[in-house]
Structure formats: structure tokens, C-alpha cells
């Protein structure tokens, strides 16, 4: 074997850094969408490496639904300060107050879809022309069709049938006034790659990824954490379980998994033998066969 070989994790790392630098070079006002979830943590780490020893050339942006896990919010604030990045937070609650959108009605109200309104308003407010997201193609079948550089029209919409072909490593970020791009440097990463990278880089992550005791309610097979935003239905009750989270979204639609994994090694072991996708814990994806595609078309992450 020739010595000019890279492991697959190194190849993914070099590819993501190339994409991040391409964003800094092709756009005037990029932003990195940062939620404090594992994918955005890895993406932010790669961005640090891409521009070292300079600081991040773009701000971190978070759309706070008000239903986030407090552990993720704490982590977000700590991280921004630790890397010396500018953090911009905008609130779904403010969009609701301003009459830009309405709280969902019905049994399982979620602010997940409302994030889109706040995000698009934030993009307009700061005139961002590219938003870096930590989405991966292995997460969901609509995302499997996503480009690295994903064009959004002036209404923030994705047109999946009319995407620009992406050949070699030539990314076309040209656009008209008012349009923007979503860019996904982790497109080719899998859940396992993300965990292995967190382990390799010894990255700190929010505590809810590790096993802990929590009061949860089982709703349609999804274990939802006790919170003021959840109304128990007849026959439902909270019970204490040993759980952790595989993915961190809104507490109203992100389910926990029962797990004793309390170290990185145990988490990696669990991911390796998992038989259910991480988005299997997301109630927002269970609404219909095309939930993700529909939300993405409207401007979701």
C-alpha cells in the first residue's frame, strides 16, 4: 500500500474543511447554525480548524423555540464564549408575539415548524447569504437528496426537483439578490462518524447525551420528557426511566431512548449495534411520509 492514504474519518474531515472554506470565500455574510446538538458541535469544531489560527469568520446563530433542553442552551452559551464567537439568538416566542406565526393547536403542539419563520426572519434581519447547517444525508431520505450547497429562493424555499448538479468539488454558490444558500459540510457523515469524531477530538457535549434519570411519558412509542409544555392525556402518566438522547431537538418532539450508556465508549457501542435510526426518536418526522421534505421545501433546516 502507498503511504498516501487517509482514513475515512480524515477524508471526511478534509472534505468538510474544504466546504467550510469555500463558504467563507464565496459568500459575504455567512452564519453557522448552532444548536448545541452533536452535529453542530462537530461542524463548529471543523470550522475552528478550517480558519485556525484566525477566529471563526462568521457568527453562531441559534433559533430558540423556548422548548429546548436547558442543558443544550447552557452548552450553547458556554461554547460560544469558549471559542470567542459571536452568538446571535432569536426566539420563536418573539415571532409569535409579533404575529408572524401562531402556536400550533391540537394534541401534540410543537414549535418545530415555527422555527422556519423565525429562521427566515433572522436571515433577512442580518442579510445572511449562507447558513451552515449540520444536517447529514444519512439522517432521512429527503436529506439524502440534499446538495452540499443548497439553493434557497427569495422566500427561503427549497426546490428539490430543480437542484443544481454538484460535480467533483466544484460548488456553485452564485445567486440573485435576496436568495441564500444552506450549506451542509457534514453531508457525507453518518451518526457513527460524528460520534467517532467527538471521541477522537475529545469534544465536550451536553450531558443529556449520556445516561441519566428522567421522568418521561410514553406517547406513541416516543419517550417525551416531563415539561410544562406537555399536557398529559387520559391514561398517560410520567414515570422515571434511565434514558439518554441520541438527537437533541425540541423537548416537545424529541424522544429519549432507554439506555445505560454513560461513557463515550458505551455510546459508540450502542450506536454500532443500534437497529433504529436516530430520527426514529423524533415525533416531528412521524407525522407523514414526506414530513421532512415538506418542511425543507418551506425553508426548514
Amino acid at each position, binding site marked *: 500500500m502507498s503511504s498516501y492514504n487517509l482514513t475515512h474519518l480524515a477524508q471526511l474531515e*478534509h472534505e468538510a474543511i474544504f466546504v467550510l472554506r469555500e463558504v467563507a470565500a464565496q459568500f459575504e455574510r455567512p452564519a453557522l447554525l448552532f444548536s448545541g446538538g452533536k452535529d453542530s458541535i462537530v461542524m463548529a469544531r471543523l470550522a475552528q480548524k478550517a480558519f485556525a*489560527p484566525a477566529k471563526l469568520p462568521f457568527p453562531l446563530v441559534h433559533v430558540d423555540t423556548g422548548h429546548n433542553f436547558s442543558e443544550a442552551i447552557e452548552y450553547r452559551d458556554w461554547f460560544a464564549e469558549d471559542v470567542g464567537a459571536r452568538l446571535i439568538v432569536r426566539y420563536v416566542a418573539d415571532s409569535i408575539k409579533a404575529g408572524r406565526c401562531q402556536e400550533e393547536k391540537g394534541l401534540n403542539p410543537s414549535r418545530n415548524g415555527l422555527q422556519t419563520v423565525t429562521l427566515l426572519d433572522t436571515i433577512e434581519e442580518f442579510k445572511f447569504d449562507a447558513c451552515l447547517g449540520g444536517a447529514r444525508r444519512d439522517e432521512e431520505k429527503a436529506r439524502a437528496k440534499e446538495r452540499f450547497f443548497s439553493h434557497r429562493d427569495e422566500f427561503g424555499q427549497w426546490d428539490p426537483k430543480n437542484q443544481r448538479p454538484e460535480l467533483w468539488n466544484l460548488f456553485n454558490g452564485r445567486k440573485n439578490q435576496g436568495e441564500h444558500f444552506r450549506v451542509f459540510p457534514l453531508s457525507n457523515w453518518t451518526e457513527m462518524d460524528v460520534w467517532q469524531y467527538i471521541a477522537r477530538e475529545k469534544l465536550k457535549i451536553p450531558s443529556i447525551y449520556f445516561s441519566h434519570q428522567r421522568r418521561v411519558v410514553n406517547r406513541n412509542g416516543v419517550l417525551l420528557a416531563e415539561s410544562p409544555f406537555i399536557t398529559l392525556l387520559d391514561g398517560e402518566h410520567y414515570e422515571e426511566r434511565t434514558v439518554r438522547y441520541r438527537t437533541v431537538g425540541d423537548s416537545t418532539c424529541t424522544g429519549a431512548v432507554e439506555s445505560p450508556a454513560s461513557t463515550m465508549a458505551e455510546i459508540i457501542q450502542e450506536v454500532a449495534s443500534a437497529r433504529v435510526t436516530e430520527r426514529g426518536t423524533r415525533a416531528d418526522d412521524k407525522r407523514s411520509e414526506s414530513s421532512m421534505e415538506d418542511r425543507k421545501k418551506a425553508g426548514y433546516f
Partner: protein
Amino acid sequence: MSAALYATSTNEHTDEHYLAMDLLRFTTAGSVDDGKSTLIGRLLYDSKAIFEDTLENLERVTEQRGEETLNLALLTDGLRAEREQGITIDVAYRYFATPKRKFIIADTPGHIQYTRNMVTGASTANLAIILIDARKGVIEQTCRHSFIASLIGIPHVIVAVNKMDLVDFSEARFQEIVAQYSEFASRLNIPDIKFIPISALHGDNVVENSARMPWYQGGALLYTLETVYIGSDLNHIDPRFPVQTVIRPNNDAHHDFRGFAGRVAGGVFKPGDEIISLPSGLPAVIKSIHGPEGELAEAFAPMSVAITLDREIDSSRGDLFAKPHNQPVVTQDIEAMVCWFSPIKLNPAGKYILRHATRETKCAVKAVRYKVNINTLHKNTEDLTIGMNDIGRIHVRTAVPLMIDPYKRNRTTGSFIIIDEFTNATVGAGMIMWPDGSDRPQSEQFADMGGL
């Protein structure tokens, strides 16, 4: 740089096996009829890349649609329009891993109207699986897929002769197809072709060698994917470094740091090496190379690094570092094969934007030399209109010089895309030929064009 820097981890939590894995990108072109979806479904399923909830969801949707057998195509057809029409429209990327390798599949539709998707999926692939129905043998579609694989310079092709169960696992039939394909492929430029008789439906020779074809002595498909040697697929000979951006920290600690950031496109760069920045021709010596894990003793493709130099030279995005004794061609005139992506035909009098490596420039198509019939490989010099999914040879003139290599020599410095300056859509993909293409021996011209 030493592989050890990457492969060794001091973290007790990481699995050394996993960190020693490499990456193979492959493409599969074909239609549902060839058993392509069945084959991908089997590879994903047998490598445990399909999760239970995905499978349950698939069962539920199959049932709702009133279909009887589990429709594995629904795994790859992620868009609503694709599921409605029962066809694959776009390139879908799939991921699976075995203990030896991680794989990225670019799954592309096989019909002629989706040639552009095939080209897209193939552009980053090390290997292509071409499926042949054992009952039908080599058909027009096989020729088309093989020509595209050859044109895009995919170094390894596996010809999977599928549905062997329907021809009684006949060795004679298999050999007949091997001979048929080999004769056709002699006109192409594919360095490594392997033939495997399989039944994707029943799993014969897919993951394990089949007892029903004892006459086949080669490895099963998955074993072949795991072991095909890809170490020499990238160019480690000609040093090429397109400058992506310049990193200049404005802080006291790194006051003088000026890093030329980019991804190595070829060859090897080391501190102390003399480089030349093109197109200016200014020389300098490499002071240091910075990778994701710190300073490096050497950098090679496809590493993303930042290079500092011993002196201040005027160089920025769009320039390219090479070495004084090994330089690309610097020119404004390019001969290339082009694949057209847009429903709006190529306008021979029109101006376009051309993006090559990290450089973007205006360009004009000066001539269309010929169009290729991608089924018969016939060169058409009468009808020179290049429409969607057409492949032809063009002469392009650019507004500024580009630093180019023939595509055959380097897939990064030998490729470009064409962008419509009004819609901003990517309308074409180009593969650069030898600059003196017309003067080269016939055999090499053939090879340049994917063997035409």
C-alpha cells in the same frame, strides 16, 4: 505525512478498527428492471445499514400502496415525486460500512434522460457497478453506462451479471456476456474491469460466494468492494495546490501569519519545497504546512491545509501553486468534452461563467466539434446542437488564463463547470483534453474521450 498521525488515536474510547478504515465511493447506474435497487437494498441490509424503523416504515408504505413485495426502491427514492412516479429522478447518496471499509453509494437513475445525474454521481466515484441482466446480455444501456464511466474516468468497473438464477447459473452464458462486454470495452478507457455473476434477489455472490456457481473462482461482490486497491487513484505525482482563501488572523499572537488555504489537488508538498505561484510565476519556498491536527511534514491530495511561505508574494483565491519543474498548462483556450445539463440548449454564440478549481471566469464557446451518440459512440459532425443530456466536444475561450491539466491526468485541475450567467444554474460539466489534442496520436485521442 505519515499515516500514523491519522490512524493512531490516544483516546481509549475510540475503536482502532474503525479509525483504520478507508473510504470507497462507488456509483450504480441502472434501472429497477436490472435489479439495481434490489442489489443496493441487499448490500445495505446485509451490512445492517437499514434500520428496523426504516424497514417497518417501508413495509407500511408498501402496504398502503397495495404492492405485494417489499419495494426496496422506496429506500432510495426519497422525494415525493419519485415515489409517486416510481422512478429515481435525482442522485441519492447512501452509506454503509463493513469492518474493512466505509462506502458511499451515489445511486443514479439509468434512463437516457438522466445522463446528467449519472455524470454527477460518477464525478466523485472510485468505482462503478454496471448491472447486466443475464437474460438480455449487453444492451444499449450497458454501452451508455460504460461510456459515461470511461468518460468520467472511473478507474474501476465491476460488471455484475445479475439474475443468474434465471439462466440456470450457466457458466457458458456468463462467459458469453464477458466476451461480448470485453469486445465492446476495448474501445473504452477503463483500466480495471472485473466480472461477477450474481443473483441480487437471492444473494448469490453478493456477500458470500454462491454454492450454486462453483465454477466462479473470484470473490463475491462485497469482498471485491472491500479489497479493490484505490491507493493510486489520486494523482500523487504532479504538485497542484489551488488557493482557496488566505487566512490572516488579526491578532498579536499570530501577527505575521499568512496561510494560503486550499485542498491539495495533486502531488506532494513539503516544508522547504520551492513552489511557483501561477499565473504570476512568482517563486517562493514553503515555510510550514498546517493540517487539521497541527503542523505537517507533507501534504498530498485530498488534504485541506494552509501553507505559509518564506516571503510575501501577491497570491490569492484562484491562483495555483505548482513546482518550477512541474507546471500545468496556463491557457485561455481549452478543448474539452462537455456534458450538458440544462433544458436550454448550449448557445454557441453565448457567454457563460466557467468555474475551474477555485477560479471563476467568463467564457465563450468558440466551436462545437462534434456530438457523441452515447449509445453507439458514433461522432456526429452534422448535428452540432448540444441539448440536455448530450455529450460533445467543444472549444472554450476564457477571459483569464486557467491552470489546467488533462482530465485523464488530474480530475481536479482537469474539470470545470459551466454556469448560466443569468439564471446562475449549473448548465454543463467539462473534462479537459490534451491541449494539443488534434496533434496527438490517434490512440491517445481515443483514450482522452473515454475511448471514442
